[in-house]
Structures are given as C-alpha cells and as structure tokens.
C-alpha cells in the first residue's frame, strides 16, 4: 500500500531567512488587529455586556422576521437585535441591560413570552445581570493572563529563559491576532470564545514546545552549528509532525464547524484560525526570536564532540 506523505522526507527549507519577511508581516497584521480591536471593537455577547438573549423557533412554517422585528421594537425595551439563523425558522432576540435592574431583566422575558409565546417555541433564554457579566469579564481576562504566566514559569523551568520568552512572544502574537480575528469577523465574543482563546494558547504552545524540544536536543548535539542553521534543521525535522497534527486537529474542527450547531460554529472558526496562526508563529516567530535572545544550552561541550561524529550530514545540507 502506498502511504500518504504530505511533507517529503528530509526537507531543508530556510525558514530563518524568512524572518526578514515574517517579522514585519507579523508586526503589520498585529497592528491591524490592534487597530481593528480599538476601531471596530468586539461584538460582545450578553455574557460580558449583560442583557437578555432569547432564541425561538416558529411553530407555524416560516418565521416572519419583519413582523418579529416590529413586534419586538414595540415592546419598548431599549435596543433590540433581531436575527434569523439556521434554516428552520429560528430567530434570536437580544436585548440590552434594562435600566430598572434585575427585576427589569426578568420582565423582558415575560413580555417577550407574552408577545411571541403563541407562535414560537422558546428554545433558549439567557438573562445575565450586570454584576454577573462584570465578574465573567474579570474571570475571562484573569484566565488568559494566568495561563500565560503559568506556562511561562513551566517553560522557564523546563528550558532556558530565552525559550520561555520566545514562546510567550509567539503566544501573545497569536492572542493579538485572534482578538483581531474576532474584531474583524464580528463573531460574537462570549465565554465560549474565552475557551477558544485558551485552547488556541494551549495549542500554539504545544506546537512551540515540540519545536523547542528539538532545538534543545540539537543544541546539545551540535555545539558548533550556527544558530540559524540549527533552528532551520530543528524546524525541518519536526515539520512533518507539525503539519500532520495541524491536519488532524483541523479535520476534527472542520467536522465541528459543519455539524456542531450554531453555538459551536463560532468556536470552531476561531479555533481553525488559531491553529493556522499557532503553527505559523511557532515556526516563524517563536524560533527566530531565539536568534536575537541568543539561545544556547548551558553546560560544557564535552558530549558534543563525541556526538557530532554521527551527525547526519544528509539532513543538514
């Protein structure tokens, strides 16, 4: 049986040479992301803004979105966002926080039920008060910050500090770009998005760590090799794994995106984006950063001389 090979054996791409392109490129899209974040802003869900979200499905054939919109506006409950989604007459209504506090929030649900209860099945009702949404914002930010710090510490213990810094720069890069992705696509940003971001952080780090592990191994082996060449060798020798795992993970995410339903869809989109940039940043950001930080393995070079003997010249070429 002929087996599939996406990446041919013994590649020797000059990834490091690309840093003169990849660094300005990343800087540019990071700037665009930051710009989009501040200029357009995120499309926050009610988890973070507070308010009421109601999803309903018509009981009688097709949803009349126009009349829903008018009827919802007539309720006089402040700004209301009416959206049709799915293909079976599903409508979502989103109301902002009511000025009259928690009691007012509850009244929204009752009034919507009274208006639409006859013709629609209520599939989802979410009411988030101002205090809860504030806390969710806090724990979301805290989660992202904490995980970066925790991973930084772990990598610092396991590797040299340069590696930890390189990994965190790459992770921040991914984080900024993901926020930009949310801002530009206007995909709703909610607690599930925080889960997506943390998973992207985890995945990107996972990828980076695999490359770093190889760099460390080769640093011990070839003490004399110029760092850029060594990084290229490390990335090339892990390249097929990097691509394979990106493919299997993307396949799983693709299945989620196509069949997982509306809640999971935006999560999957963000994740697929995250996989792509996570893979990119491990190769083109995390590794080349090591050149500037001057990564070297501590300790003397005794074992190196003995090991260079069996250095496979074919892979270095």
């Amino acid at each position, binding site marked *: 049986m002929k*087996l*599939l*090979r996406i990446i041919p*054996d*013994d590649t020797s791409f000059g990834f490091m040479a690309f840093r003169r392109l990849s660094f300005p490129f990343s800087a540019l899209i990071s700037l665009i992301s930051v710009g989009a974040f501040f200029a357009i802003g995120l499309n926050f869900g009610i988890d973070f803004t507070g308010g009421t979200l109601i999803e309903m*499905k018509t009981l009688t054939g097709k949803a009349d979105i126009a009349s829903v919109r008018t009827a919802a506006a007539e309720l006089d409950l402040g700004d209301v966002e009416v959206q049709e989604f799915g293909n079976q007459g599903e409508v979502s209504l989103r109301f902002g926080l009511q000025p009259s506090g*928690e009691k007012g929030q*509850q009244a929204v649900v*009752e009034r919507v*039920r009274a208006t639409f209860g006859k013709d629609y*099945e*209520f*599939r*989802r*009702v*979410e*009411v988030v008060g101002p*205090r*809860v949404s504030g806390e*969710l914002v806090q*724990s979301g930010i805290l*989660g992202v910050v*904490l*995980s970066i710090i*925790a*991973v930084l510490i*772990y990598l610092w213990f*396991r590797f040299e500090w340069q590696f930890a810094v390189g990994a965190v720069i790459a992770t921040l890069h991914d984080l900024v770009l993901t926020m930009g992705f949310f801002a530009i696509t206007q995909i709703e940003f909610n607690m*599930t998005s*925080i*889960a997506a971001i*943390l*998973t992207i952080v*985890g*995945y990107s*780090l*996972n990828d980076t*760590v*695999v490359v770093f*592990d190889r760099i460390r*191994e080769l640093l011990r082996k070839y003490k004399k090799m110029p760092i850029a060449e060594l990084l290229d060798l490390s990335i090339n020798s*892990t390249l*097929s*794994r990097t691509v*394979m795992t990106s493919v*299997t*993970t993307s*396949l*799983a*995410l*693709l*299945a*989620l995106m*196509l*069949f*997982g*339903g509306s*809640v*999971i869809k935006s999560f999957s989109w963000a994740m697929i984006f995250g996989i792509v940039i996570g893979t990119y940043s491990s190769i083109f950001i995390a590794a080349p950063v090591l050149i500037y930080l001057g990564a070297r393995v501590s300790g003397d070079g005794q074992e190196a001389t003995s090991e260079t003997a069996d250095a*496979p010249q074919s892979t270095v070429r």
Partner: protein
Amino acid sequence: MLRYSRAKIAAVLLLVVAGFVYAAPSLMSPETRTALRDATPGFLPSWLMPHQAIVLGLDLQGGSHVLLEVDSAAVLKTQVATLRDDMRRILRDEKIALAGGLAVLPRGVSVRITDEAERARVVPKFRELVTPTSSIMGGGGQAAMILVEEQDGLVTLSITIAGVTEKIRKAIDQAIEVLRRRIDALGTTEPNIQRQGIDRILVQVPGLQDPKRLKDILGTTAQLEFRMVAEGNASSPDVEMLPQTEANQPPLPIEKRVIVQGEDLIDAQPGFDQRTSEPIVNFKFNIRGAQRFGTATSESVGRALAIVLDKKVISAPRIQTAITGGQGQISGRFTVEAANNLAILLRAGALPAPLTIVEERTVGPGLGQDSINSGKIAAYVAAVLVIGFMFVTYGLFGFFANIALIIHVVLIFAMMSLIGTTLTLPGIAGIVLTIGTAVDSNVLIYERIREEARQGRSMIASLEAGFTRAFATIVDSNVTMFITAAILFFLGSGPVRGFAVTMVFGIVTTVVTAVTMTRMMIALWYTRARPQKLSF
C-alpha cells in the same frame, strides 16, 4: 521495548475492559440501566457494577439554571433592627428613660446614656449581646459585633464585616433549605441546589418547558402575616399603608402589630371554597398560633383582618366569629395555580431575606436534543476523518493509533461516568477536539521512528528510540495544554467548564492510550511478525 510482563499487559487490558464497562451505560436506554441496577446483587458496592450513565448538562437535556443573590443590604437591615430591639428591651428591663432615644446607624445602633450609674448597669448587658452565643461558627474568632464607649456617654454597638458575612452565610444556608422544600414540592426531578460564593445560590432544574413558575417560587420571600386593618386614625405611627395584590385596589391602612406569622403555620393546602368554589388555601396553626389567633379574633369580631404576604395585602375579610380551632382559609381571587403556589410557599416557610435572580439560562428540551444530535454527528465525522487520515498516512501503525484513539474516547466517557462530571455541548466539542489532538502523540512517535530509521538505525532500534525520545516532548507539550485547560476549569462556569473537563480528561487519557497502548500493540506485533524494515 519488546518485553512486556504478563502483569503489565493484564493491567492495560483490565483498564480497557473497565473503560468499556463504565462507558457502556451511557449507550443504553434508561430502562436497560434501571433493569441492570435492579439485577445487581445488593452486596456489591454500587461503583463495582456501573449503571450510571454520563450526566448531561442542562444545555443538552434542557432545563433551567438560575443564579440567585441574597439581598445583603436587607440582611444587614434586619440585623440592625434586631440589635435595636434587643437594646431597647435591655433599656426597658433596666428601667432607663432616655432623652435622645436610640440612633440607628448604617451598621449599628448607638445610644447616649449620660448617667454614669445607669451606664454601668447597662453596658455589661450590652456586652452580652456582643459576645457570640455560639463560638463554633464564630468565623475564626472574629467578633461579630464591637462595643465602643465614648467619654460623653455615647455607647455604640456596631456589626463587623465578619458579623455581616456570617449572617449572610446563615441566611444562605436557611434559604437553601427553604428553596429545597419549595422545589421538591414542585415535583421536578433531580434539582441541584448549591451555594455559590458567599451570597449566592445556584439552582439547576432539568427539563422545564417554562421556568416562570420556578422563578416565581424562587423569587418570593413568602413572609406571611396576619394583621388588623386599622380603624379610624390612619396616620398613627403604628399604622402603615400597604398595597393590595389585586390590581386596581387602593392601599389599605394596616396596623404594624403582627398577630400571627407564617412561622406558626404547620400546614397549608390548596382547596376550593365550598360556597363560591373559588380556589383558596386552607391552613393550620400550631398551638401558639392558634391561641393568639383565637384571642385576637374573639376580641375583634366585626373588624377586618388583613392577610399580608411580603408587605402586600392578599385579602382583608371581616371577622364573623372568633376562630379558635387553629384553622382557617385564605381567599384572594386566586387562580388554581396561584393557590397551589401559595400553599407550597407557606408550607416551605419564608426566606430569611429576599433573593434576586442575577443570572438565568434556560434551554428548551427541543434545542437540547438538537445539540446532542449535532454533537454526535460532528464526533462521528471527526472520528472517520481522523481515523481515515491516520490510516492513509501510517498504514498498520495508523491502525494501531486508531485503536488507541477509540479507547481514548471510551476512557474519557468512562472517567466522566465514574466521577460524575457533567457533559455539556462545549464538552462534546472538547472531546471532538481531543480526537484531533490525541493522535498528536502517535504522530510525534511515528515521525521520530521514521527519522531514526532514515538515519540508518535498525528497525528495533528506531522503534525504541522513537518511543523514548518522543516521550519527553509528549509530556512537555501536553503539560502546556493541561495548564490552560485546568485554568479554564477553575475560572469557567457551566458549559465552558464542561469543555475544560473533557480537555483535561482527554489529555490524561491520551498519554496512556497513545503512548502505552500503541507501544504495547507495536511490541506484540513486532514479536509475531518480525518485519525487517519499517512499513512507512
């Protein structure tokens, strides 16, 4: 690499079998599970014979998640009021007349006693209020109240932060009890009521189509009072104007003095009035309540008696004759459901403080079922794609990885069933995602084996090197994933937490299945087939 002791192989096989056994109930119908449980001999511990299906989150089975917050200001207010009453009683007992009276502060009460002798008599009594009666719940030795005596005879008792917190904690404990009784009376299955943080209660009730009734029941304080309707002077300080529950009715002047309270009720049942066949609530007092009610009604025949619930007048019937039997009925133009609800509320007792709904998430059963279906389809499609891809890329070794992958998913389900964690929609997404990432360990190993083989090592040496060298990488890369998933678990709530759970379990099982099991499979295969070169 090649040698595995029989014990080791047996242990791994046992783990796999246990995984399938514990995951199996989730695939059975509820009837089969019950039959299985009934068939289990009683002497076997319940964890040995699994019949526990995985617990589905409310977003999958449909249901309501309601987060209630106790009104801390109200708790403090009652606490201050009780303190004021206690101090007033002491002053009255000691027959001390005050010039200025008691001053109620936001978090305490102060009184000016200029006479030194009088002060000497009263202050020790006040101190008794300060010393907590029960030191077990004293909050680690922190005083609930402090007493400050000033030069000019001003004595202030103030409630400390610890005192307020302690009170709120107790109020929540009480409220949980009351809510449990109320929800049990609704007859819903498996409600989950638990404290969250200091001042919140989380109520999760599966399978309600319309949670309005649940919310009505949760949000009512249900403080029932029987009080006289004032006659004549409505502006007296002992009278207050209270609104009526029935719409478009004017407020009534009601005496502040409470004759009997809800806590003196021993039963309340919905029923129908025999003459008007209107829905009513029949109630029964305890002995103390019956006595007080009897005395009050016999003294006030002909007057109107107001039935007040949470500062609103339900009705104010005229007393025809003295009611001494300790039984009565409340009528107030109820609907059948309203009478039912009131009876439930009165039986369960009043909440110690008002609760507000600060968060609600309800998923209808239709959407829940749809989510399960789409989650299943996504999982199957992902599994087929990944399994196919692994097989096309690695052939026989891919097949080994695929077997490990299937066991990996089974083990996640088994762990979730065994520990009893909840499967949510994001949790399903987490499992599907781990289908994609679980094979990463295999990919790392296989790619390493190929590399080693390309460098001219023998087959067996490549296998050996592949497994050992890749292992450190696998650990490092999984630890970083684990850290982020664990943080998400501690900070996330509800469905998102379900995602973190499956991710964490997925990371743990992947190391076992992808490393240990594949290695064992390859070793067994190698010792049988003795291939000369790698097949990929």
